[in-house]
């Protein structure tokens, strides 16, 4: 590996870390607040990427308007899933994750029927430029995601710590019954958590849509790394998910570049198993008695 490839891969790894962080933070937030795992979370990303495709590549909207629409679409999907699946199944973790597994199929078929199967949809990047850095060139579109990820995740942490609503979310995560006794409306909080989760996945999907080959099965490919990130970070921990996203962003990108994508998944699963043997609750997870 020469230095040029090293720099390029590092830049890609940072961008991938940002993307995994954006996806995993929402997943872990939803898990923390309602103890429910959303396996269709990767499909929020996929549907948002298709939103950008439909509005920007087909509809001729400005790129940023399309991304904003993708964020809204992600948030609305989160709301719908909360209302239609998680609320009726309240507290039943197993049923929740099996039901969202079914939802993966529904999304995939809907998108496939609307926009076609198999073919990947190329979306022209609005920023064709590449940044040259020490002889390596890095696509600007990839770098673009990094400031967004930093600001939105930093913002979420700030929100969770200092805002009334954020503190209410954390209260529900710690003890729903006690939170309800304090007058916190739990249903509103879970709806809020799920729509934040959906919007973050939508942001990632919108921004990365020009880089990924957008196909209906994109969500299925992304969900395993995202879930690994959440589990390793410690379920429900935003900081942990961010840390784990950086670790796996680098592991996956470097192994994919040096060997191949299949090996990258195998290596990351092995890393996950090792972490879980040493710390069963994940890197920054709380020990639940």
């Amino acid at each position: 590996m020469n230095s040029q490839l090293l720099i390029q891969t590092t830049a890609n790894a940072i961008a991938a870390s940002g993307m995994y962080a954006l996806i995993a933070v929402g997943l872990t937030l939803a898990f923390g607040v309602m103890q429910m795992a959303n396996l269709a979370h990767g499909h929020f990303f996929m549907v948002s990427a298709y939103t950008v495709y439909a509005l920007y590549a087909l509809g001729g909207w400005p790129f940023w308007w399309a991304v904003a629409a993708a964020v809204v679409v992600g948030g609305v999907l989160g709301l719908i899933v909360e209302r239609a699946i998680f609320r009726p199944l309240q507290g039943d973790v197993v049923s929740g994750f099996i039901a969202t597994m079914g939802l993966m199929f529904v999304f995939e078929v809907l998108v496939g029927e609307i926009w076609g199967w198999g073919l990947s949809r190329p979306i022209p990047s609005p920023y064709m430029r590449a940044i040259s850095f020490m002889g390596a060139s890095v696509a600007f579109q990839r770098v673009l995601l990094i400031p967004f990820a930093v600001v939105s995740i930093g913002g979420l942490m700030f929100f969770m710590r200092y805002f009334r609503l954020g503190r209410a979310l954390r209260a529900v995560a710690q003890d729903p019954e006690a939170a309800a006794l304090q007058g916190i409306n739990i249903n509103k909080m879970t709806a809020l958590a799920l729509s934040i989760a959906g919007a973050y996945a939508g942001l990632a999907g919108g921004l990365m849509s020009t880089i990924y080959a957008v196909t209906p099965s994109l969500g299925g490919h992304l969900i395993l790394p995202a879930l690994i990130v959440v589990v390793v970070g410690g379920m429900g921990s935003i900081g942990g998910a961010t840390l784990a996203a950086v670790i796996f962003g680098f592991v996956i990108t470097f192994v994919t570049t040096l060997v191949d994508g299949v090996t990258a998944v195998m290596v990351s699963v092995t890393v996950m198993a090792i972490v879980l043997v040493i710390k069963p609750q994940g890197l920054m997870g709380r020990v639940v008695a």
Partner: protein
Amino acid sequence: MSLLKVEKFRLWGLVPIVAGIFGLCILPFFARAYLIEVVMMYFIYIILAQSYRLIVTIHDWQLYHIVLYGVGAYTSGMLAKDLGIPVFAAIPLGGAMAAVVGVAITLPLLRTKGWGFYIATYGLAELIRLSWLKFRNPFGGSTGIINIPWPPVIGGIDFSEGIPYYYFSLAVMLVVMYMLYRIENSQIGDSFKAISMDPELAASTGIDIPRHRLMACAIGGFFAGIAGGLLVHRLGAVDPKLFNIVTMMYLLIWVVVGGTNTFWGPVIGVSVMHTLFELSRPLIEIRPAFFGLTMILVLIFLPGGIGSLISKAVDRFRRADILSAGKAEGEGA
């Protein structure tokens, strides 16, 4: 008097089972070859779903069961092809291998709780499945393994033919179901249920939870491996695509729609959902969405599955029966 009624009722319960077995036994005499092949797949899937249910009774909804089915298929196929081990010995060896792999996956995850456990089992299952894809030697990569030996001729019966293999797999299914039934109604089965209901209480009565969880996944894994062995020696080939998360999803659909509270639930689930699966072949593109939606609706509106409906109806019938018996007694006195 009323006790006698209950006993009689239990005997009546055997009628549909005996009738079902009899029907399956005489089916090859008037069914076309294609139908026999289709019904054979039901036998394999019922073994798979029943063995998964055993693990579910302890509340470990792991997501690697399909991969254990694959481990059984690969092991059995490779033993028969590469080492020349007779097919009927290779199938149980495949089951044993699946049990070992199941324990090896669960062992490092025993301390991970709840959702993390489910996801980690999915991850480790992918690790195994992707290793079949990655290591072309000896697993054959994405094309898998072909030219797996057919079952031999024993006592003049050629088991590579459809009908003899049909009876063979029917027999295996019945034996497996009988064994699972006995396990469920043994002390081990009771411990499994105690653990799923209240792990802390179960532990306080002296039940060794980790040991029972490993036992459940070893037993369930063994039978999943048997199902894989049955499959591979009928298809004569195996590839990693057969064992991906989509197939796992269909297994979950059978088990959830049939219901896990009753022993017969998964049998009903396989019978109903796999029939719908076969009938919906023309709609192959939208079929997954239909099945996904069915599962969501069943989970929300009928959490016990179809099995719970039937056991509820039987209960009502039984209660009415006992009541009327009691009334008759009262009138007689």
